[in-house]
């Protein structure tokens, strides 16, 4: 197989056996990045020099006979909302178009400690607000499986790059499905960890009680390796959990006999594409054949998760994004004569339509006279949603559902209807509201496009999720499929 399409663990084996050098891996992935970038457009910024530097450090370590870490010399990319010291971090926004962070996010430090080399920063919906990456202020990223379709969002660049062979793995962020929905659209593995498992220090804040960074990879083994690198307490993030993560490689055992899997019936309701449902039910059927005990379960408050989310997330966003005032960093309009008009003009030109829409929505929900009706109500609904999961997990080890009710859609199809766009996150949003972990893994195709299976777990239940995902993956061919991107190389 081409080096650019290999997994990190397969490359690591070749490196250790000295069958290939890290420099060769770096050059292969860089060449692929260049070749497909004109059609896929995953990257806002590329950093080939950092990839090459990490590769030569890995090669030197190997030459000295040292043991290298599993991610040493592996080219990886980051969604452009994670701060990288000295490397532009834009959030795909005009507001931060020229922002050069003076520090690294904790996840960036941890990947650097592993010896993984940054290959570039990835396109996204502006400030992670969106489900198709069409809200990037710079350009659209294409779905490598069908260039007329969206990669999903908001981590669209991350999944497109991993699916197209432009990076071996990536980190995305997931506030309301933004890792899992795009992973499902592009046929890759995406994990949203338990809230608090991975440090948010240096992640540009969208909705602080929901945001979580997670891996985007080509298979479940790589997902475990990347999670090993980034999980764990960080004193720089006061919402980071005091939890000692296990070695997630130890859950990579293809055995799910007796595992109790619940099927939430509300996730199979109105709006679910019948063919997506067929593919997902077949996947669940296979897990049953592998020994899982499957039964239906009800999460009765599911339909309230989406409206509650679209109060909580914009409310937190309106507060977080108040910092963009054109003073300390970022964009500022020219020629304003007083400070208030400078703020107002800067924010109006610096932010795009969706970001302004959510700031308006959040400001309204928090404004005097409406706080109780909207924000407080949404927080109470959040309690009920979490309660649904707590109840279900008394009987089940995992819950399984589609990741998205449909496969990827075409550009422009939902762009003019914010509500229709919001509905594409129906199955992923309750997980963020409850703070639990969930993965999306490839489980087949509908109309030639990838379909994702979502597995949801108990808080800090990543081990069970990875074990089940691994067992399913080992019994199926889906994770080995690659898009037939035809480019000159």
């Amino acid at each position, binding site marked *: 197989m081409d080096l650019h399409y290999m997994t990190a663990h397969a490359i690591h084996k070749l490196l250790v056996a000295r069958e290939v050098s890290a420099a060769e891996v770096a050059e292969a992935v860089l060449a692929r990045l260049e070749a497909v970038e004109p059609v896929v457009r995953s990257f806002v910024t590329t950093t080939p020099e950092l990839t090459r530097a990490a590769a030569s450090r890995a090669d030197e370590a190997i030459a000295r006979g040292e043991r290298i870490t599993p991610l040493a010399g592996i080219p990886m990319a980051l969604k452009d909302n994670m701060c990288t010291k000295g490397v532009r971090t834009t959030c795909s926004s005009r507001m931060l178009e020229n922002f050069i962070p003076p520090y690294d996010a904790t996840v960036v430090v941890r990947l650097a400690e592993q010896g993984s080399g940054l290959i570039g920063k990835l396109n996204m919906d502006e400030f992670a607000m969106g489900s198709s990456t069409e809200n990037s202020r710079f350009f659209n990223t294409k779905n490598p499986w069908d260039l007329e379709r969206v990669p999903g969002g908001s981590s669209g660049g991350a999944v497109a790059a991993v699916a197209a062979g432009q990076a071996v793995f990536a980190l995305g962020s997931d506030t309301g499905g933004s890792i899992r929905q795009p992973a499902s659209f592009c046929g890759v593995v995406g994990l949203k960890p338990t809230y608090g498992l991975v440090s948010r220090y240096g992640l540009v804040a969208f909705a602080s009680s929901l945001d979580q960074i997670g891996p985007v990879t080509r298979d479940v083994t790589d997902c475990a390796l990347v999670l090993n690198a980034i999980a764990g307490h960080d004193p720089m993030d006061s919402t980071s959990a005091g939890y000692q993560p296990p070695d997630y490689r130890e859950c990579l055992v293809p055995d799910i006999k007796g595992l109790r899997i619940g099927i939430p019936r509300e996730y199979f309701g109105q709006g679910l594409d019948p063919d997506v449902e067929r593919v997902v039910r077949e996947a669940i059927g296979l897990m049953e054949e592998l020994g899982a005990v499957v039964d239906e379960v009800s999460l009765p408050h599911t339909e309230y998760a989406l*409206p509650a989310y679209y109060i909580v997330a914009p409310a937190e966003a309106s507060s977080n994004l108040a910092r963009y005032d054109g003073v300390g*960093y970022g964009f500022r309009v020219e020629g304003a004569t007083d400070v208030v008009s400078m703020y107002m003009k800067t*924010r109006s030109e610096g*932010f795009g339509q969706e970001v302004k829409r959510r700031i*308006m929505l959040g400001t309204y929900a928090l404004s005097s006279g409406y706080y109780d009706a909207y924000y407080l109500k949404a927080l109470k609904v959040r309690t009920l949603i979490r309660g649904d999961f707590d109840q279900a997990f008394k009987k089940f080890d995992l819950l399984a559902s589609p990741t998205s009710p449909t496969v990827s859609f075409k550009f422009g199809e939902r762009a003019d209807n914010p509500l229709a766009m919001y509905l594409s996150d129906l199955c992923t949003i309750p997980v963020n509201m409850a703070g639990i972990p969930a993965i999306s893994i490839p489980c087949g195709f509908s109309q030639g496009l990838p379909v994702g299976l979502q597995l949801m777990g108990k808080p800090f239940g990543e081990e069970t999720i990875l074990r089940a995902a691994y067992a399913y993956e080992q019994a199926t061919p889906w994770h080995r499929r690659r898009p037939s991107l035809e480019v000159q190389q």
Partner: protein
Amino acid sequence: MALVTISKADVEHVALLARLELTEEEKERYTQQLNNILGYMEKMNALDTAGVEPTAHVLPMQNVFREDAARPGLPRELALHNAPQAQDGMYKVPRIV
């Protein structure tokens, strides 16, 4: 169930609170879209939440303290590096008073 109606004047008021200057076209569009979206939020009113505690945060933690020890901050030069305008080691803004 209360029917939300947001007027253009409401949109103008919220935009001022949020420090956003909207065009006439944006005001019209946001009035319509916010009405649609908040209309959908009305769904929540069907749910009786009397006696339900709000969840602002999913982790059972509060008051995360660290030792009150001085440590180096960002050097001034680096802190000003991204400023749109700086002068004499300070941020520069338009006249306030």
